[in-house]
C-alpha cells in the first residue's frame, strides 16, 4: 500500500509539472482535474480499512475536484471563446526549473518537519510543493483562468497536508471545506466569464484600472 500511495503522490507532482509546462489552457484544466481525482483516491490508499468517512471524502473530492469544477471551467472557456494559449509571464522552461526548486525546498523542509504518526515523507513534500507551485502559477500566469487553476493547485496541496490529520479533522469540516472551495471556484468562474465579456480577454494583467 505504501508504494501505491507514493505512486499516486508522484503522479500528483508530475501533473503539477504538466500544468507548469503546458502551453494549452485546456491541458491545464484537465491536468488539475486528474490531480483532483488522484487526491480523491489517496484517502482510500492511506486508510486501507475503508470507513464511511474516507469513502465519503473520496467521493466528494472526486466529484468536486475531478468532475464538476473542471467541467465548469471548460464550459467557461468555450463560452468565453478564449485564445487557447497560456501566455506566461515567466517562460515555460523557467517555470519548470522553479517547480523543481519548489520540490527540492519542500523535500528539504519535509524531512526536517516532525510529522506525527506514520506518513510517507513524500506526502508532506508533495503538499508543500503543490502549495508553492500553486502560488507560482497564481503569480506568474497572465490569464485569469489559469489563476483559478493555480488556486485549485494550492487547495490540492493543502488538502494533501490535511490528509496527515485525516482521522481528527471531522467529516463535517471536510465537507465544509470542499463546499467552500466549490463555491469559491464557482464564483471565480462566473467573474471570469463576466470579465471576458467586458474586456474581451481573460488577461488579468489588463485589470489595472484601479490604482493610486
Amino acid at each position, binding site marked *: 500500500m505504501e508504494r501505491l500511495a507514493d505512486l499516486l503522490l508522484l503522479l500528483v507532482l508530475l501533473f503539477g509539472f504538466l500544468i507548469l509546462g503546458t502551453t494549452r489552457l485546456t491541458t491545464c484544466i484537465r491536468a488539475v482535474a486528474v490531480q483532483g481525482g488522484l487526491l480523491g483516491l489517496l484517502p482510500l490508499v492511506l486508510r486501507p480499512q475503508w470507513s464511511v468517512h474516507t469513502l465519503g471524502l473520496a467521493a466528494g473530492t472526486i466529484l468536486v475536484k475531478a468532475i464538476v469544477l473542471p467541467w465548469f471551467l471548460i464550459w467557461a472557456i468555450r463560452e468565453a471563446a478564449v485564445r487557447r494559449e497560456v501566455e506566461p509571464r515567466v517562460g515555460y522552461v523557467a517555470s519548470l526549473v522553479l517547480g523543481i526548486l519548489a520540490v527540492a525546498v519542500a523535500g528539504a523542509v519535509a524531512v526536517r*518537519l*516532525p*510529522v*506525527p*504518526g506514520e506518513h510517507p515523507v513524500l506526502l508532506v513534500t508533495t503538499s508543500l510543493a503543490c*502549495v508553492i507551485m500553486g*502560488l507560482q502559477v*497564481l503569480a506568474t500566469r497572465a490569464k*485569469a483562468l489559469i*489563476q483559478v487553476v493555480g*488556486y485549485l493547485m*494550492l*487547495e490540492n496541496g*493543502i488538502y494533501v*497536508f*490535511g490528509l*496527515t*490529520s485525516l482521522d*481528527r*479533522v471531522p467529516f*463535517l*469540516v471536510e465537507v*465544509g*471545506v470542499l*463546499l*467552500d472551495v466549490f*463555491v*469559491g471556484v464557482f*464564483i*471565480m468562474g462566473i*467573474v*471570469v466569464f*463576466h*470579465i471576458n465579456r*467586458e*474586456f474581451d480577454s481573460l488577461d*488579468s494583467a489588463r*485589470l*489595472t*484600472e*484601479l490604482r*493610486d
Partner: protein
Amino acid sequence: MLLLALFLVPALGAAGAFARGTRHGGWLVWVAAIHLILVATAWWSPPAAVLDGWLALDPLGLVVLSVVSLLFFVVATYAVGYLRCERTGRGFASWLLAFLATASLVAVSHHLALLWVGMEGTTLALAPLIFQRRDRRSLEAVWKYLVLSSVGIALALLGTFFLSTAQGELSPGVRPLVLEDLVAHAALLHPVWLKAAFVFLLVGYGTKLGLAPMHTWKPDTYGEAPALVGGLMAGGLTSCAFLGIARVTEVAVAAGLGQFVQPPLVIFGLLSLTVAAAFVVGQTDVKRLLAYSSVEHVGLLVLGLGLGGVGVYGSVLHLVNNAVVKGLLFLAVGNAVLVVGPAATAFPSSGGGVLRAVPVSGILLLLGLFAVTGSPPFGMFLSEFTIVRAAWAGGHPWIAGAVLALLAVIFIGVGAMMLGMLYGPVASSGPRARESAWLVAGPAALVVAALALGIAIPGPLQQLLARAATALGGSAP
C-alpha cells in the same frame, strides 16, 4: 440550541429571500431583528456549548457577535431606503443574510476548522455584492478581492492543519482543534508547528483583515462596492478576521509563546498605520480614503493585541468603535452617492458641496470625521488613548510617539479630503433622490452609539470587554 439558531435563522432567511426573490428590505429588517433578539437573549442567559464544544460563546465571541448583529441591523434598516432608490440584482438580500449567517458562525465556533469554514463563507457571501454594477471597475475589484482573499484564506487553512498537527498524538478526552482544549493543554503543543500555524494564520486572516502589505484589495473593493456593503466589510468582516487572529494568539500566548507572537503583531500594526498615512494624504476618492482609514484601524487593532496588557483591552474596545464608526461613515457617504450621484465621492474633481446637497448626512459625516480621527468625546479616542497608554506602560515610548505622529498625518489627510468634499458650493445640478428617514436613521443611531461609547461605556459591556481582554492574556485598566 441558541447557538445553532444564531447561524440557522439568517441562513434560512437567506434561502427564503432567494426563493421569494425579494427586492425590498422589509425581509432583511425582520430577520436582522430576530437575530438581534437572539443575541440579546445570549446576553441575558449565556448559552451552553453544543456539538461537543464546537459551538460555544465566550466573551470575545459575544463581543464580535453583538457588533456584527447590531451593525447588520442598522445596515438592514438602511437597505430599506437604499433598495427604494437603487435597482439591484436578484439575490442582493439573500447574499447579505448569508453574510450574517456565516459571520455568526465565525463568532460562535470554537472549532478552528469550523471557524475557517465560516470565514471563507463570509468572503464568498460578500463577493457577489461587490459587483452589483457589472462594469469593468467593479469586476476588476471583485476579481482582486476574490483572488487575494482566497489565497489568504487557503494559507489560513494550511495554518489550521498545522495547528492540528501541533497537537501531536491526542491524549484521550482531548478534542482536536477545539479552542478550550488547545488552551487547556497548550503546554503539550509542539512549539515549531504552533509557531508555523501562527505565521500562516496571521498572514491568512491578516489578508482578510487587510493588514499592510496584504491590504491591496481593500481600496479597490471598498471603492467599488455599494456603500452599505463597504460598511459591512469595514465593520463586520474585519471583526471576524480579527477574531480569527485573536484565537490563534490566545492559544500561542497560553503556550507561553508571547515573546514570539508579539513583535510581528506590533510590526504589522505600525506598517499598516504607515501605509494608511501615506495613501490617505492626497487621496481623491472618499471610499478609497475610508478603505485606507480602515487599514489604519485594523493596524491599531493588532497593535493593541501585540502590546499586551492594557493594550489588549484597548484593541477589543477599538473593535467595537471601529464597527460603529465605519458603519456610520460608509452609510453617510452612501447617502451622498444616492443623492448627488457617484461623483460625490470624488474630490477635488467634484468640487464638494455635499453639506448643502445632503444636510443631515453631511452633518453626520462631519461628526464621523471627528469620530474616526479619534477626537474626544467619541469612542475611538478612549480606545486609542488606552493603546497609547499601553505602549508607554510597556516601555515603548517610541511606538507611542510613532503612532501619534502617524495619527496626526492621517488626520490631515482625512480632514483635508472630507472637509473639502463637505463644504463649498453644490456640485451637481438636480438631486436624484432625497435622503429619507430610512437612510439617515441608521447612521444617526451610530453617531449616538459612538458618543455613548466615548463618554460612558455601559457597565455590562465594560465587564464583557474586560473578560475578553483577560482571556487574551491582557488586563483591564
